[in-house]
């Protein structure tokens, strides 16, 4: 549909007067408040209605996969931090699990528990940003600031743990870099306690606000089939009503020991798979993460935090393995090809946002500009991991 032809009721005349109207091509990004980074969407619109969306990527491309060829296995952990800079712990986790799977190394129990606590705290932190910025896309400023307030508390814990507030480089192959500090458990439990109260506040302020529901329900519906086809994972897939989560369905680390629900979209305010469903899945996942953290804190044993039988310079046996873990955005997969050396032969990152964003090409046409903004916001993309 490149041109819309509007014919008026003058067909009976000798020469019908045909009015041509053109589509408006408009660049949303790379500097645009709604694109959550440096994404460029080439949008063709007919008035307020979007006719086609074409994402252009690469503004944040650093070719970390090429850099991997020059790093050793441990060094590249630093770069995984920078994929999803809103959830570096989850990225670290994915890479650590991937390499450990190939090394077949036993990670100490304590490290496993610390990892799970960190990953779940990070999931909460990441979802807080997702929720806050989603609200911001809708024009609600205040929830964003509240979300950041709670996120800061989580970052304080991470700062005490790893020394960094944003890029932690905390996980290491075979364990974690530092042991948990003395009152780590108390702090985490307090944070969880605070978080559970704040979720109620967010629900009142944003989730069940009528305007918010109007803006998100029945908007940007992505059904399960589309999710499978476009490789959407994480809250997008679960929002479409598929209770799939790598933590339960393809367990890694020690996630099989914990009891938790997998929230999925049920179309409470509209259709299954609309923006509101994706939003509420994140909201409920935060509660579930709190549950996991409580169990993990209870079960955390004493002991090593780093695998003692691992050398400083890791050499991974030759082979190829695709390992996936559940980050806050979805399935983060590391396809690792090793040649037996101390450096990766090929590290391919299958980032969740990359596939999640792709679906916008499919669902974008036909919606209004405001809905496009809402849908992109509900996909919760991070350009760091799309462009890598």
């Amino acid at each position, binding site marked *: 549909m490149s041109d819309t032809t509007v014919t008026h009721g003058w067909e009976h005349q000798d020469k019908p007067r045909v009015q041509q109207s053109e589509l408006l091509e408009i660049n949303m990004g790379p500097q645009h408040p709604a694109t959550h980074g440096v994404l460029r969407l080439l949008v063709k619109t007919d008035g307020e209605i979007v006719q086609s969306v074409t994402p252009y*990527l*690469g503004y944040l*491309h650093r*070719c970390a*996969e*090429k850099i991997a*060829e*020059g790093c050793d296995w441990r060094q590249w952990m630093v770069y995984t931090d920078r994929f999803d800079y809103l959830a570096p712990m989850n990225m670290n986790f994915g890479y650590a699990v991937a390499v450990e*799977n*190939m090394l077949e190394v036993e990670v100490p129990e304590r490290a496993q528990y610390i990892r799970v606590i960190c990953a779940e705290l990070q999931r909460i932190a990441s979802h807080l940003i997702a929720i806050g910025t989603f609200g911001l896309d809708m024009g609600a400023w205040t929830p964003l600031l509240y979300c950041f307030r709670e996120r800061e508390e989580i970052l304080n814990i991470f700062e005490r743990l790893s020394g960094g507030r944003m890029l932690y480089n905390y996980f290491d192959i075979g364990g974690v870099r530092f042991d948990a500090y003395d009152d780590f458990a108390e702090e985490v439990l307090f944070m969880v306690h605070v978080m559970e109260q704040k979720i109620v506040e967010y629900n009142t302020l944003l989730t069940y606000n009528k305007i918010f529901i109007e803006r998100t329900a029945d908007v940007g519906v992505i059904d399960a089939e589309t999710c*499978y*086809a*476009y*490789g959407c994972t994480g809250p997008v897939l679960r929002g479409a009503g*598929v209770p*799939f989560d790598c933590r339960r*369905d393809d367990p890694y680390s020690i996630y099989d020991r914990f009891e938790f629900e997998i929230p999925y979209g049920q179309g409470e305010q509209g259709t299954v798979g609309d923006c509101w469903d994706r939003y509420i899945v994140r909201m409920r996942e935060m509660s579930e993460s709190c549950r996991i953290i409580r169990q993990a804190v209870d079960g955390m044993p004493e002991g090593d935090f780093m695998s003692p039988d691992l050398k400083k310079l890791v050499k991974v*046996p*030759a*082979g*190829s*393995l*695709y390992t*996936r873990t559940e980050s806050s955005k979805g*399935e983060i*997969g590391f*396809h690792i*090809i*090793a*040649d*037996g*050396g101390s*450096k*990766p*032969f*090929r590290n*391919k990152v*299958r980032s969740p946002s*990359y*596939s999640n964003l*792709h679906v916008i090409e*499919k669902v974008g046409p036909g919606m209004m500009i405001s809905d496009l903004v809402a849908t992109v916001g509900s996909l919760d993309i991070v350009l760091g991991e799309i*462009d*890598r």
Partner: protein
Amino acid sequence: MEPNAIHDLLCAKLGEAALEYVDSYEKGTVIAAAKIAEAATLLRDEPELHFEQLMCLSGVDWDGHDAEGKGKSVAILGYTEEGKPELSDRVGDGDLGVFYACYSHRHGHKYSLFVRVPRDAAEVPTVSHLWPTAAWHEREAYDLVGITFTGHPDLRRILLEDGWEGHPLRKDYQMPAQWQGVPLEGRSYAANPFNEADVVLPTKPEGGQG
């Protein structure tokens, strides 16, 4: 379904095209490049397999990788005196490969497909009509590794800019010195202000004036 059963099924349906069974960390089948779309169709549409999701598609440059694991995996051989990377001027001769990781939500099983194509005729049929997600992953493989996917609806570079020279993830790739007039070499602010000749060694206690 067990991986080797899937392989047997692929062998039965595809015959010669299913080249060999890979039993490493990853279980999968090596498929002849021309038949990959058929194999993918089979994986997706066969009710017992029903791989409705393509988890990952990655392009690989196998240059320098040998089975014993003693291959040289780095394009940067070392560093020159000035600290600049020393690149090999070797032209790669290994195959290029594509890796497909599929997952079935219905059956909960995984399977992988491998394809190897010669470097100078790196053409693989697309699977983007089967799994739309492959469209972007194939564009990425085209962009970074330089594998052409025939039948792809929109095969453009995705991460790098249009008109970029070369494919960075090839092992023999050399970064151009500049791109559209912008030097790509990072500026160093850490030029050595000192001269080795200026070094004043401390006085030795036992050696008198050094």
